[in-house]
């Protein structure tokens, strides 16, 4: 799949933003005044920036409001509804914390639950797609949810929590990679089933339908990026999870937290790039590519 920068930024930034809102909601940290202003600002800013980045991916962003209508069937619509609901429900709690130094527990908990559901819905947009076997698996949502929660805990300066979440995230990434590698074969789709000609013999593309490029190949048959998959996995694991975890073990102050944060963001960007670049769509079988 094509690793579109808008989608990578959206999933990483809004994931962290909603992760931070989860921790601000459940009250592990109940900032007030200026601290609350900065933390809620960060949460809302990241979540909002991610959603704006996602809008850049649309062909017709001016019709984006229509995307709130199909929550009965579509995970993308559910994600939009949940994201808006999170920001709306959390707002009274945020305002009360900033201006009146009084957290509103009910709004806070409801907002936290919605924020967590939003990250899960983001993951399900990808995990629901059966035509991309690597994504269509239970190991996809844990990576998104743990990345959001770990990054959010780091931003909320919940260092012990962040440490454990970083380790869990590292594990989730490795599980997703290892099991993901077997997914295409497990889907049992090949050139034979794609054409129905497998019953006669071995099927090979002789002539593609056209000599140039097309939308399908550009969007869904991204072969280039997989060359460095192994190195990028190691980079994502080390920067995204292990290095932040190591920095959090050290008894240091906010400098180490900042280092952990920067490394974590770089690592998760690499992970997310690879998430798209490495995923093979079955339509490639019609083009003799995977």
């Amino acid at each position, binding site marked *: 799949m094509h690793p579109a920068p808008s989608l990578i930024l959206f999933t990483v930034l809004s994931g962290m933003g909603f992760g931070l809102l989860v921790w601000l909601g459940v009250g592990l940290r109940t900032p007030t005044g200026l601290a609350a202003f900065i933390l809620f600002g960060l949460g809302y800013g990241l979540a909002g920036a991610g959603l704006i980045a996602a809008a850049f991916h649309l062909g017709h962003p001016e019709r984006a409001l*229509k995307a709130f209508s199909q929550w009965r069937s579509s995970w993308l619509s559910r994600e939009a509804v949940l994201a808006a609901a999170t920001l709306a429900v959390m707002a009274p709690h945020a305002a009360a914390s900033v201006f009146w130094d009084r957290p509103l527990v009910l709004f806070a908990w409801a907002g936290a639950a919605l924020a967590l559901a939003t990250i899960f819905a983001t993951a399900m947009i990808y995990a629901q797609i059966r035509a991309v076997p690597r994504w269509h698996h239970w190991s996809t949502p844990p990576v998104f949810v743990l990345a959001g929660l770990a990054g959010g805990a780091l931003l909320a300066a919940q260092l012990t929590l962040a440490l454990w979440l970083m380790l869990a995230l590292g594990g989730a990434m490795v599980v997703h990679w290892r099991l993901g590698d077997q997914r295409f074969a497990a889907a049992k789709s090949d050139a034979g089933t794609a054409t129905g000609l497998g019953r006669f013999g071995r099927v090979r593309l002789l002539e593609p339908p056209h000599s140039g490029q097309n939308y399908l190949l550009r969007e869904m048959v991204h072969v280039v990026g997989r060359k460095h998959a192994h190195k990028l996995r190691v980079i994502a694991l080390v920067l995204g999870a292990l290095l932040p975890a190591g920095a959090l073990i050290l008894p240091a102050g906010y400098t180490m937290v900042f280092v952990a944060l920067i490394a974590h963001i770089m690592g998760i960007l690499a992970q997310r790039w690879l998430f798209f670049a490495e995923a093979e769509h079955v339509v490639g079988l019609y083009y003799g590519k995977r």
Partner: protein
Amino acid sequence: MTTLPPAPARKLGLVIDLDTCVGCHACVISCKGWNTENYGAPLSDMDAYGAQPEGTFLNRVHSFEVTRDAAPPMVVHFPKSCLHCDDAPCVTVCPTGASYKRVEDGIVLVNETDCIGCGLCAWACPYGAREMDAAEKVMKKCTLCVDRIYNENLAPQDREPACVRTCPSGARHFGDLGDPDSAVSQLVTTRGGFDLMPEQGTGPVNKYLPPRGRDTLQMPDLVSLCAPEPRAQPSGPAPSGLLGWLDRALEKL
């Protein structure tokens, strides 16, 4: 709504005969023509006269080679367009309701004024049946020529999809695949029609007919070709001399 309708009353679709398709791409061109000049946003071309031309097509013809163990390899031309699946994953993922499957005939369509161009439906389709138009930024797909098949301004023989109407080898058939007695359903039954990627669980309505087995030439071998009509063996004394030697020599062969 992007939830799928309960079983549609009719299931209009195509039956594509891989035995008779000659790979001429006429269906590709007639499809592009009709769907550029009629319903919905035109199918644009980008850099049409430049070094890297590309465009939006709703129907494309691939050619595959099948290598067989006990027979010569076989070339199969393979047209592919939307299969109007019973359980269409492209419809349920749509966040806006632009994608829908019609209750009355099962045709999967895109309402272009509701499409936000997110591309998720194209990702959800295992067959590559949907392409985002680069100029209009909305998703395009086969409409089964919904603006032809019910069009009373057209002559009755023209009320079928453009690809079917134009196919010079009769490799494309249009009809109701929900009716077991329809001509297309009968064709599928008698010829052993099959689904593409059944393991993806989409329940495609369109069916493909497999290439037929090739005839083998029944030609007698050279020796039996020269066999004389059976007749009574000459009797009498064995010849002698040159004839006798010839007789014995041929006997030994």
